[in-house]
């Protein structure tokens, strides 16, 4: 049985840990509220933008816009949005596992967040060329303009022919307890990239008119659609990160409290034992003296 002093030391250290995880939980909770709000209030906008873009897909053949029409894929870029910091449960691990499963030689990666960068650097690489085409920073209050730099980079590569398709991988925020991994094609816009497994909506009954010309409208709409998709994915990812971290820290705090309880019990037992022994010794000594 450990000495009482030893147990007391352990209780103190566990209590300190609990204090830290509790503080981290509070910080994550307040960040989570903000991130959630940002992610959720953008959803209707995102959904409608997607609807509009989707209504263009059936007419892709006529419209002949490079972002609408698939071409043979030699090289596929994957934008990976993870977190900057760890201690957020299995969020990154889930994402990376899925990416690892799909990893192939035709892929290059663009990372957002430090964890994504270090994971991608560790991927098996048979070609010798670097897999990581670029990495971008992640900030809590990332603005649309900053996220646009990422999409511009990807679109430039796409139009210069260096890459032929763009996928996006991120954590999808469902609620504070549930986050799912989402990996979906972004460009070229194809029916499956938009409807995400749901049956495609009924084709518009009449071909739409465009104002200004279809080319000009698509030139404005499609890059914006990509910009916005990436921005929304980052917001989603941030909301997921803070939620996952809050839950992870909450569990850690609860575990620590449980441990303190167990240790306290053990400590009291040891203390009681010590006292009993002392009384016994005093009594014995007294009897011996008489």
């Amino acid at each position, binding site marked *: 049985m450990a000495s009482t002093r030893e147990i007391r030391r352990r209780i103190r250290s566990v209590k300190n840990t609990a204090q830290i995880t509790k503080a981290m939980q509070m910080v994550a909770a307040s960040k989570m509220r903000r991130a959630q709000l940002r992610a959720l209030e953008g959803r209707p906008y995102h959904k409608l933008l997607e609807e509009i873009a989707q*209504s263009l897909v059936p007419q892709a053949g006529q419209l002949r816009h490079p972002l609408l029409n698939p071409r043979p894929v030699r090289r596929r870029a994957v934008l990976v949005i993870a977190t900057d910091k760890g201690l957020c449960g299995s969020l990154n691990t889930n994402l990376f596992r899925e990416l690892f499963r799909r990893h192939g030689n035709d892929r290059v990666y663009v990372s957002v967040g430090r964890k994504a960068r270090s994971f991608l650097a560790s991927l098996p690489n048979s070609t010798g060329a670097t897999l990581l085409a670029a990495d971008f920073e992640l900030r809590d209050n990332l603005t649309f303009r900053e996220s646009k730099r990422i999409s511009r980079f990807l679109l430039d590569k796409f139009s210069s022919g260096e890459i032929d398709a763009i996928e996006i991988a991120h954590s999808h925020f469902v609620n504070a307890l549930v986050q799912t991994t989402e990996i979906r094609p972004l460009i070229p816009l194809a029916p499956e990239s938009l409807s995400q497994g749901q049956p495609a909506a009924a084709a518009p009954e*009449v071909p739409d008119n465009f*104002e200004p010309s279809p080319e000009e409208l698509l030139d404005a*709409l499609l890059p914006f659609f990509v910009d916005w998709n990436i921005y929304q994915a980052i917001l989603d990812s941030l909301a997921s990160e803070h939620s996952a971290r809050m839950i992870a820290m909450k569990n850690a705090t609860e575990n620590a409290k449980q441990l303190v309880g167990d240790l306290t019990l053990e400590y009291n037992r040891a203390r009681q034992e010590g006292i009993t022994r002392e009384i016994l010794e005093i009594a014995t000594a007294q009897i011996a003296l008489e």
Partner: protein
Amino acid sequence: MSQLQVHIVTPEGVRFAQDADMVTLPGVEGEMGVFPNHEPLITRIVPGELVLQTGEERKVLAVGEGFARISAERVVLLSDMALYEEEIEEAKVAEAVERAQQALRQKELGEEEQAATAALLARSLAQLKVKRRHRPA
């Protein structure tokens, strides 16, 4: 009489989702009035004023850049801004216009920054336009 279902959505959420008799919106090729049974159309919109007419009631909003999808019974408008007339703070906006104009005149701005400032200016001017025109006499 049939009505149009109008949805106005911004990144901050759904700003308006109701029926209206007529919508006037600032398209790239000029203002357009939309009645029910309009021909399907997708258009870009530019910063300006949007008017919703429902019976006798008239609502005016300042909208920013975006897109609108019009079909026979639905108008869906996506914009980076949608402010009701009464939400616009004239003094603040006037100040923003002033600052943006100055920045555009004086400073050497990068291409991206230039575009952002110009967009901000256009949004602010649209707000002022809405506010000043409809000020109660």
